[in-house]
């Protein structure tokens, strides 16, 4: 009924640069907002802590401390772009980590253990994807099954934490590639690599464009002859794979596998993705945005520990930010619907 509302507006009347920019890149606005928040956080913390905050050491640590979350957020971005959600990633990460630790402790070589971790994650993702695509199960529920399965299997592997002594794994964390006071670890490189690969896949492959199309309208995507079923299942497999990879990163980071790892981490990952500007109904967002979202998350955490405040503030602030972004997104979506 609103179809005819404003049909003449868009007709060529010499759009200004700004109009062109907004009409082309409107969907990037939330991501810009995330960047702005990140900058405000940095500057605010710098002023408040009198120049102690923006140091190479702190910023390098930001990537190091949040590498596992970044990997999870990358996978989550794929799923959310299709309009789905994956609650299983925290448990998958725990399962993958404890599985790797156990295999390594039993003398299985790393080149077998690491692929096993990744495959374990991908298998749970595959299960979720099949349930969602072929059995019409809501993503929320299907990934809930994945959450239970991952957590339970983690405890089946071991009820307590297992230390990792494999030098190859520990190397991922202990190596510091330095440039002045800046440094990066192989885990950080893995996380950035995941972002780069995901950005490539999402923007420069037909599979990636199909992911966006599904998020825009699954029915349209199907009628346009795109390979919807495959892409949708793959999104969950990728998320599971990232869960497995995050398990590797976290195991390297903490030097052990622990079945209680990552309880509630799926919420952090979702929050980071949303703060980074990806819209939960799918179809709009960027993996780079998710990276920014993770940094916002990590920066808040660092600031809180700098200030010596209670960590419980973390949850409250992230919740509040999430709310803010959701309300803003809601307004944006409502406006763009109103324009049609």
């Amino acid at each position, binding site marked *: 009924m609103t179809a005819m509302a404003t049909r003449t507006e868009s007709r060529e009347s010499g759009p200004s640069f700004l109009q062109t920019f907004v009409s082309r890149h409107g969907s990037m606005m939330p991501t810009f907002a995330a960047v702005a928040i990140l900058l405000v956080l940095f500057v605010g913390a710098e002023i408040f802590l009198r120049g102690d905050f923006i140091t190479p050491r702190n910023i390098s640590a930001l990537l190091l401390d949040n590498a596992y979350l970044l990997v999870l957020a990358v996978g989550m971005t794929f799923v959310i772009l299709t309009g789905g959600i994956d609650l299983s990633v925290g448990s998958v990460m725990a399962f993958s980590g404890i599985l790797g630790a156990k295999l390594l402790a039993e003398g299985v070589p790393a080149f077998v253990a690491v692929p096993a971790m990744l495959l374990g994650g991908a298998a749970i993702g595959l299960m979720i994807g099949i349930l969602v695509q072929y059995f019409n199960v809501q993503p929320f*529920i299907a990934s809930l099954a994945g959450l239970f399965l991952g957590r339970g299997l983690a405890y089946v592997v071991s009820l307590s934490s297992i230390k990792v002594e494999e030098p190859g794994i520990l190397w991922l964390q202990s190596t510091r590639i330095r440039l002045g006071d800046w440094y990066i670890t192989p885990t950080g490189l893995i996380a950035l690599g995941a972002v780069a690969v995901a950005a490539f896949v999402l923007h420069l492959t037909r599979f990636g464009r199909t992911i966006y199309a599904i998020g825009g309208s699954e029915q349209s995507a199907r009628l346009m002859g795109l390979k919807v079923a495959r892409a949708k299942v793959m999104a969950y497999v990728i998320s599971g794979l990232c869960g497995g990879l995050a398990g590797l990163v976290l195991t390297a980071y903490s030097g052990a596998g622990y079945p209680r790892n990552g309880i509630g981490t799926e*919420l952090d990952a979702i929050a980071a993705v949303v703060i980074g500007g990806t819209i939960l109904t799918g179809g709009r967002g960027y993996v780079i945005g998710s990276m920014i979202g993770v940094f916002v998350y990590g920066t808040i955490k660092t600031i809180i520990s700098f200030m010596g405040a209670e960590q419980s503030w973390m*949850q409250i602030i992230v*919740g509040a930010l999430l709310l803010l972004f959701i309300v803003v997104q809601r307004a944006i979506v409502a406006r763009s619907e109103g324009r049609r």
Partner: protein
Amino acid sequence: MRSIWRHRLFWPVVALLTLIAVNSIARPNFIKLRVRDGELFGAIITILRDSAPLMLVALGMTIVIATRGIDLSVGAIMAVSGAVALTIIDGSDDPGNLATVLIAVVVAILVSMVLGVWNGFLVSVLGIQPIIATLVLMLAGRGVALLITGGFITTVNSEPFSYIATGYLFVLPFAFFISVAAITVIGLVERRTALGVLTEAVGINPEASRLAGVRSRGIIWGAYIVSGTLAGLAGILYASNIRAADANAAGVFIELYAILAVVLGGTSLNGGKFSIAGTVIGVLIIQTLDSTILFLGVPSAQSPVFFAVVVVVVVVVQSPRIRNALGRMSRSRKPKAAVAAAVVEDKQKAEVGR
């Protein structure tokens, strides 16, 4: 005969009875009831007692799901409720005083109700997707609970407070009576008034309901308030049971078990038709299964694997794909009706267009 196995509670009841039968055979103690000091004990009594928090949460969840929503924040609300109650009792001069406990419980439940109001506001007024709207409180709620308790696990020694979860009234656990009262009140309000059918209408077709004059905003809002309030009560039960407010552990995953109970009871997550009786059965299935897993000597930490299997089996059996396949095999009329409905639907789509 046919109408019996067609009834939507048929399979849930069969599942529950099977679990009970298996348990009774595997461990004869299961159905045995012992009387001690005029109080009943036994595995079944334990199940009835321990299921109370989940029962309360699942009842609220049923109503929320019927409106096409979901409430992820129930676990966090439980944590807040426990934290509020115990902080009040802990701060009073006389923790054992009945009045103190009553005040603490009432305040905690009021706070939970306010949190429900908040959720309902986000969903029904701002129009935010329920999963996301309640995710906010799910994240932030535990933080709030931790702030209230100052980051510690607050423990109290209060006789009246412990009674809530562990005491006996006549021969049965007090907590069981709370469950029954909640089921009765919800059941009566939903079915004796028109609230139930209006809730279903809103869940099935919100816009049609609005145009029919149903106050859908109020109904949806109310559902979240009920859910928050019941979660608050569940938080009291939890805290009373362990005599402590543990903001990190209270109600962890309970939203997931509650959703599972609702689904097991035959209520669709797409909203609409709901069944309170189904949810009750769903909760009992989960609690009995939990007890069974424990009896099998499986560490309770590993029990999620079983629940994962249950979730997968239930959703796969309920999926259209399997239903149609089963329907074709049994050559029953149902799938035909479904196809006819689909045809009608297609036709209408074509007609209605835009």
